[in-house]
């Protein structure tokens, strides 16, 4: 299970292990967020281990 921290500070879990699939699983468009693991940016193609925590940074701004 992978833990996903959303930009608003809430959490969700996903059973997927590829970032692209995790984002789809939690309803996030990969063009609307950056994905950070242990303080580093990662690309959507990488696979992560069970127990990994990933943080999402929203990139959408303005009004």
């Amino acid at each position, binding site marked *: 299970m992978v833990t996903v921290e959303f930009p608003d500070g809430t959490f969700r879990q996903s059973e997927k292990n590829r970032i692209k699939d995790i984002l789809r699983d939690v309803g996030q*468009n990969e063009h609307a967020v950056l994905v950070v693991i242990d303080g*580093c940016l990662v*690309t959507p*193609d*990488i696979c992560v281990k069970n127990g990994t925590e990933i943080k999402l940074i929203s990139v959408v701004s303005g009004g």
Partner: protein
Amino acid sequence: MKCIKCEENAVISLSRHNAGFCKEHFTEYFHRQVEAAIKEYAMLKTSDRIMVCVSGGKDSLVLWHILNLMGYKTAGMYVSLGIGEYSQKSKAKVNAFAQKNGLDAIIVDLDDEGCPIPLLAARTKRNACSVCGQVKRHFFNKVALDGGFTVAATGHNLDDEAARLFGNVLRWDTKHLAKMSPVLPEEGETIKRKVKPLIRLPEREVAAYAFLNGIDYIPDECPKSRGASSLKYKEVLNELEASSPGTKHFFYGEFFRAAADRFPYITNENDEDKMKKCIKCGAETYLDVCSFCRLKEKLNG
């Protein structure tokens, strides 16, 4: 995914280019995109004094950072909107950035001016974003003139402009379609040239650049922008981008090749009505009193 330049692990993927970059080569790519936009549209000259309109958000601080790295003469100009904690936090980010980089920040505080956006919006019964745009334009023009700046630069990125184009096309708003260019010329005696050097870069790449280069910005959206149509348009365009990479670039870029000449920009010199000076503040206006001073009058009565 590996960096296409050096085979290091990529930190960002650019699906429209079918490529990934490491930090070093993404930064290099990002700088090249800004330089290309400046060159393509003849946005800036080395002799320009540039007023960078900053909000404390990623786009404007990244723009200020890059123009400074490129050696341009810049100062930041920030309008504190009087929106509670959001304004306090964003002003602190601007001041911290200026201090860290040894740059000048010019601050206009709407609380001090007696016209914070929430109060103006409530008194005029208008949408806060619309009032905000009008007030910011007034102070951008005023500070640029008073400070002897030759050009005002804003951090609008590809997503901002593609969303604006999308909204203008949905409404066939010909007046605003005529103002889609990333360079708007100076007008009259007081309105300076306006440029948007981040126009080739999607906001995901701007956010990645800020993250990778330690630019500390306010990530929160303005609380008054919740539900704004531009955010909905961005969501729709991101959906299209996900299924068809490059859509935003194509939509925005091709507008200038295929359609922009149908919506010519009308300068004031071509306008039948001559502009005059506002009798209250001296800003250029078509009426005796400018739209900002008329807005302020509504606060008093």
